[in-house]
């Protein structure tokens, strides 16, 4: 009696776990707090990714690697598969409104890489969040520009 009871509990429990897992596969909408965690990377900006999502899931690393060689070696700086582009589009805002870095588990890349236990090497060197606007522009602010212009013209007259 007691043994049969235990067996029944086990069967029901197992069924529950399997059921939820298959549900998760079907809908991809299960919250991460569920019993079977699935990665839920934050949605990027804009309508769609630079390539079909399914393709990106499987091939983003290859695309990034090709792009990296073309950029570093040849100076080709197209946007489609640039890591910078990924980072800017998929920024996840943190508590202070600033995008989170890779140290935060909510980081776009980390959500899946943590799940798949695949080491992320990129961000030992690369910035893991978008550049601040001023830095992205890479230009000196206007006030300073004008001051420099003045100094510059003075130097010219000397």
């Amino acid at each position, binding site marked *: 009696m007691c043994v049969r009871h235990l067996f029944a509990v086990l069967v029901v429990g197992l069924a529950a776990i399997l059921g939820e897992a298959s549900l998760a596969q079907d809908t991809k909408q299960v919250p991460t707090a569920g019993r079977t965690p699935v990665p839920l990377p934050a949605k990027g900006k804009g309508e769609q990714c630079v390539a079909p999502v399914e393709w990106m899931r499987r091939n983003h690393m290859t695309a990034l690697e090709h792009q990296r060689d073309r950029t570093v070696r040849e100076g080709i700086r197209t946007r489609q598969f640039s890591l910078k582009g990924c980072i800017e589009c998929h920024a996840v805002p943190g508590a202070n409104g600033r995008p989170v870095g890779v140290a935060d588990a909510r980081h776009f890349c980390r959500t899946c890489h943590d799940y798949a236990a695949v080491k992320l090497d990129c961000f030992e060197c690369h910035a893991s969040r978008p550049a601040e606007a001023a830095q992205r522009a*890479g230009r000196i602010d206007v006030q300073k520009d*004008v001051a420099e212009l003045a100094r510059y013209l003075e130097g010219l007259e000397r």
Partner: protein
Amino acid sequence: MSGDVRGQAPCGCDAGAGEARPSAEEANAAGIHSARRWFLKSAAAFTTVALAPGVTLMALTGGASPSAARPPSQPASSGQRWGLLIDASRCPEGCSACVSACSQENGWKGTGHPRTDAQWIRKLTVRDPKSSVTRSVPMMCQHCASPPCVDVCPTGASFKRADGIVLVDKHICIGCRYCMMACPYKARSFIHEPLTDQLAHAPRGKGTVESCTLCVHRVDEGRTPACVEACIGAGHGAMMFGDLNDPQSEIAKRVATLATRQIRADLGLDPGVRYQNL
């Protein structure tokens, strides 16, 4: 080695280790004339900045910028060879505008361990032991045409781009530091500790070697390296950037007419960085 200094003096009358005075003065005079033309062109660009700052801000040196932006899909071309010309007579000893600009632009800075900190560019004090005359010049990767760092790199991480810019592909750098052993200019630094918050356009990380990139990310956009921009901004105009292969470029014209020299020219590496009045 002082032979090449003498070799560039047109009159050949330089007898000792001192400056080749007559030729240096000629050089200065010519330099000032062409520099003025260059500056006036830049001034036009500055006016534009003042009138419509938000719109044409990128023309800070745009009018004078010797490089035109390349479409992003175009690879760097071997038709160009980027280089610098540094006029030691215009470079004041106390100024380090180029160094701070580079540091800010590329995100390298003191970590509290000066012994191992990276320096992509540094101010070099050059003293003549006989006359005690000193000069101060910036020293950085000389972007050689035959770079020893590229020759010795076992993996090919150290490479020269088609347009002459010498870079480290940090993706395949294993951190053996053989390139640092081979560089005659001590231009390279090894990253000795973990880094965080690197800049998006200047990736760098522990265990790899790095050096001046000639601000390749700016050059590809048709802009001038940060050091050159800062030098102009500081009112010295001691640094000039341009395409050595383009006979119409200001830098090529100067190299063709003035007594400029390459550091350690005896090694035959043909650096893309040239100095005058050193």
